[in-house]
């Protein structure tokens, strides 16, 4: 299996990882999340390695999205949501005082379950992030960023001659790749994806999976998925959540072939879900 190559990178051997000094791009330490009085996540400890795809799986309502949204502080805008504990990005607590969410979200991009292109042209959709962050110094610069991002998202060939067409006019799969292009246009370090393929047909899904596999060369990817096959196909690490607990975390292969916890086993074999 191809995955094996990547999953070889062990947590215990930092020297071998890409980011040699710190193999863990994101580390969560005893993270508790509450919506009002209700606890959605219970003391989560999770270290996510760089330049890999980490899959978050688990039954509906177990807190996968909640965890994902903690990583770029998207929960800040949710009324009554409270996050306790520590989440570090490159060793820096993103919930510390003085951390700027705008800056953080430029470093940690996000792709959503339902493709949500803005009601703007394809070009402007991709240019949106660089524009608000002031990343392009000139029109030519911006063109380069946009074309590059579309290229990386594997969409350029399909839309090259209609960059001025509205982004909402694309097919679902194209829209989702547009959203990926939009996210990578600001050159984030981490890309969060919440069930990016759940609204897509199998062919579009295959394209996105392929894309994710390519993107991991340059980005750390954390994705939520409900599809066991998808997790097995594209991820190197898998975390299994259940009722707000992180039950098991490890190499994807290990989780699927030799789960330690019986809840994990029940889930991956389709007995709970």
């Amino acid at each position, binding site marked *: 299996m191809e995955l094996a190559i990547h999953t070889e990178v062990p947590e215990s051997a930092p020297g071998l990882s890409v980011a040699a000094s710190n193999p863990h791009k994101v580390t969560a330490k005893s993270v508790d999340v509450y919506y009002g009085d209700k606890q959605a996540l219970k003391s989560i400890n999770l270290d996510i390695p760089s330049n890999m795809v980490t899959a978050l799986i688990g039954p509906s309502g177990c807190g996968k999205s909640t965890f994902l949204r903690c990583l770029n502080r998207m929960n800040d805008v949710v009324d009554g949501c409270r996050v306790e504990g520590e989440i570090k990005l490159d060793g820096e607590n993103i919930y510390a005082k003085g951390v*700027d969410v705008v800056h953080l979200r430029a470093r940690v991009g996000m792709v959503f379950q339902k493709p949500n292109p803005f009601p703007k042209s394809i070009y402007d959709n991709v240019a949106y992030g660089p524009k608000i962050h002031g990343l392009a110094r000139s029109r030519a610069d911006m063109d380069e960023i946009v074309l590059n991002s579309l290229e990386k998202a594997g969409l350029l060939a399909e839309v090259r001659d209609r960059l001025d067409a509205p982004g909402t006019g694309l097919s679902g799969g194209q829209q989702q790749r547009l959203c990926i292009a939009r996210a990578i246009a600001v050159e984030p370090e981490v890309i969060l994806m919440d069930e990016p393929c759940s609204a897509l047909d199998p062919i579009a899904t295959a394209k996105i999976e392929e894309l994710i596999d390519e993107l991991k060369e340059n980005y750390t990817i954390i994705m939520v998925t409900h599809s066991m096959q998808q997790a097995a196909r594209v991820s190197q690490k898998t975390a299994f959540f259940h009722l707000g607990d992180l039950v098991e975390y490890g190499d994807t292969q290990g989780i699927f072939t030799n789960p330690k916890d019986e809840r994990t086993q029940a889930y991956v074999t389709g007995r709970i879900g």
Partner: protein
Amino acid sequence: MTDQLSNSERIQAGLARRYRAEKRFRLYGIIAVVLAVGFLAVMLSAIGARGFGAFYQTHASLEVTFDEELVKDKDWQGIVKVAMRKSFPDVKARRDKRKLYKLMSSGAGFDLQGMYKADPELLGQTRTVWLPTSDDIDMLMKGQIDRVLAEDDRRVSDKEITWVDQWIASDRIELQFNTRFFTGGDSREPELAGILGAVMGSLLSLTVCLALSFPLGVMTAVYLEEFAPKNKWTDIIEVNINNLAAVPSIVFGLLGLAMFLNFFGMPRSAPLVGGMVLALMTLPTIIIAGRAALRAVPPSIREAALGMGASPIQTVTHHVLPLAMPGMLTGTIIGMAQALGESAPLLMIGMVAFIVDVPAAFTDPATALPVQIYLWADSPERAFSERTSGAIIVLLGFLITMNIIAVFMRKSFERRW
């Protein structure tokens, strides 16, 4: 690349500017809300401050003798004059005397007439009574006329002020509750003008309006929501109702004038016609609210009733309508509140005349409260501006009450299925 900045540095560099823009944007929003709320506050307090005075009227205490001669001649104002002369024995010159009489309202005599009618025993007797002063003295007492101004620039002469001051010194002038304002019809004299005529006119119009628009509105809503097939015809009705809701109110007035008055020959200035015009105007509001209320009744209720063998009409009248009624009534009250505040269409059908008598029938000539406000607002007297504001306070009082009832109904009948 000439620019060595990393993305991260670029973002960092722009942050301060972006947060300033954020603050500014938020500030615009706050300014907008403050402007709107501030205007409301200024308007209401300006009107409130002015109008409150209308509920009080300056009265002077006079020693009145019901002289047999004068009573026989029905010269009630003459009695007042005699009393005034008695009050100010020093005033001798003819011109001054005439001025002196003007301190009192021309309505003071009416009060005496009323007293005498109620108690004919008064004949020949002397009584101390409080009688209304003229509007100028009223304004002076309320501080609306600036005593410091040059004599020519104010409506009250120095002499009159001295007289009033004598009254004040002897505690014989004071502000009393202005009963007349609530019990009287219109008058050319501000101190005699009351809103009862206008309130009755509004009440009569609204009665007609309610009697027409409520059943029509409910039946239309029921038909459209429960029975109408989805076809061109019902589409037309639907579009028509939505557009009717946005037709300027004055156009309804034109309709009333051309149709009801000129074509059908109905009486001008009558609350009957006013109510009909207002009914056509509020109909869309009631229909739209009624349909919303019917739509809020879950289909399961209809299915259950039909399943038990009720006919479609029975289902609606026995099961659906009772549940939708609170919502419909709420919409109706809101429609009535709109109708109560409406004046433009009433101007078109002649409910804008100077009418002293309080209307008692649907065909009596009448005005309505908002039209009375319009009429008084046009009068130059300072005191009328006060009455106008007073009438506005009363009108707003009615509207607030109606809206509170509507809110209360909505709250207490709110159901969750």
